[in-house]
């Protein structure tokens, strides 16, 4: 049985942060993402539950901050009706940025024809792209009539949990098809920084974390054959080309899989043949397919009951 891993975010100076990485490797934890900006470093990591104290001690010694990051390893689609100036950069970008604070990876998706009431619609391609994520956050406008009566048709065909943001103060039950509704984040033309707006964003993060918790619990009933972070580590070891990818998150973790930002045609065989110490290859444990996003590789891990064993 593998140890329970807890997600944490470390923020501190670049100086000696390698010690932390070494410690984590010794403990059997994983570095999910490392971003160096100037003299600062942000690291999202998974730490074995019983060793959190050790890492905390070292972090304190290095004068860094270690905080819990409940959305680590979650890929969220922030869906805006279109990419016009009506929705961007505020509020859709603000929502996406705020969701990244607790560790999530967000992708902004602007629908081609999502605007309007009667005329809004989503395409099959867009729906499949959204379904590749763990959670979809739809950012809607200020009219309750639109949100209640017209916009829910955009949810058709979406199989992942749906979170909706909008201006009016509605109950989640009023928005059919949504798993959570968060008000006070409607259409705005300024940066969300007033107290009630930031409160609403906090509420959104809490709500999303709760949904993620639910999904994780569901997954725990029939665990994955291998945890995504382990595949990430193996890809980094066995496919060195991943180090030359310039995306901020070359391997993006999902709750039940990963997105590898390498071209599918050239690398999918290499990924399929990824070997583990236990003697199995990745294609036995997961479905590897072409992602709808930029020809990347999408890995969806099979469950233990499906494969018959877990490593």
């Amino acid at each position, binding site marked *: 049985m593998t140890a329970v891993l807890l997600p944490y975010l470390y923020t501190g100076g670049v100086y000696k942060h390698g010690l932390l990485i070494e410690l984590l490797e010794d403990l059997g934890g994983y570095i999910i993402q490392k971003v160096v900006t100037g003299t600062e470093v942000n690291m999202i990591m998974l730490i074995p539950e019983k060793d959190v104290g050790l890492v905390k001690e070292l972090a304190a010694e290095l004068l860094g901050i270690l905080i819990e990051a409940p959305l680590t390893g979650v890929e969220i689609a922030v869906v805006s009706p279109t990419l016009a100036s*009506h929705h961007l950069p505020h509020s859709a970008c603000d929502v996406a940025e705020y969701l990244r604070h607790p560790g999530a990876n967000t992708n902004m998706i602007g629908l081609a024809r999502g*605007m309007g*009431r009667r005329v*809004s619609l989503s395409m099959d391609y867009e729906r499949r792209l959204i379904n590749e994520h763990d959670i979809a956050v739809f950012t809607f406008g200020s009219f309750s009539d639109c949100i209640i009566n017209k916009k829910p048709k955009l949810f058709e065909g979406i199989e992942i949990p749906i979170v909706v943001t909008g201006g*009016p*103060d509605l109950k989640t039950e009023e928005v059919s098809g949504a798993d959570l509704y968060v008000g006070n984040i409607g259409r*705005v*033309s*300024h940066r969300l920084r007033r107290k009630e707006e930031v409160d609403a964003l906090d509420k959104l993060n809490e709500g999303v974390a709760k949904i993620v918790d639910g999904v994780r619990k569901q997954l725990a009933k029939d665990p994955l054959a291998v945890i995504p972070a382990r595949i990430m580590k193996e890809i980094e070891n066995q496919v060195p080309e991943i180090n030359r990818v310039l995306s901020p998150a070359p391997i993006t973790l999902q709750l039940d899989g990963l997105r590898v930002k390498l071209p599918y045609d050239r690398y999918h065989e290499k990924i399929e043949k990824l070997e583990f110490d236990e003697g199995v290859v990745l294609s036995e444990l997961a479905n590897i397919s072409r992602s709808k996003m930029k020809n990347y590789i999408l890995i969806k891990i099979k469950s233990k009951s499906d494969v018959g064993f877990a490593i």
Partner: protein
Amino acid sequence: MEALETFIVESAIDSETEFYKKIIEDNISSLKLAPAIGRIKVVLRPEDSLFQMAIVLREVGTKLSTIEMADVEAKPVASEIIISIKKEQYLSDLLIKLWERYGKANIRQPDRWTVAISTDRPLQEAEFIEKMVVADPRHTLHENLVDFAIRVTPEGFRVRYHLFKGNHFVFVASEEAMKQEWIEEAGAMLKELLEGGKTK
């Protein structure tokens, strides 16, 4: 008329009115329209997919020619024209026009307040430059108003009607085919603004 002396936003639900007022305020400030708008009224009817707006503008400046912002002096011997800037705020507009006419290679800026142009016909050209229109605040205002209208309208409302006449601006947008009565309603809003004065 004071700037923004009347600012009315109407819709069936109060909280939505507040949201929308904020959107309109933000866009007025980002397009720097506040000094130009005297009275504005917006009516929202999302259930009918309808957005109506009427604006009464304040007096805006008239066209500005070079002579009002600078001294133009021809130097026939040196084949040059020297422009001494008096109002720097219009310098960029002037330079764009000059570059177009004479090319960047023929224009020097020895210092912040001087523009020198090399030309074969300094006398005639100096005369032309003096009368040239540098900035037309009305034209800029028109552009900004149309931009403003499109930015504040809900994005899906792509069927639009707009009227810009004198100091009056009427804008109606919808998702459905435009109805004559909507335009008339917006016209009535404008009339109300013209008569109403300080209603709020």
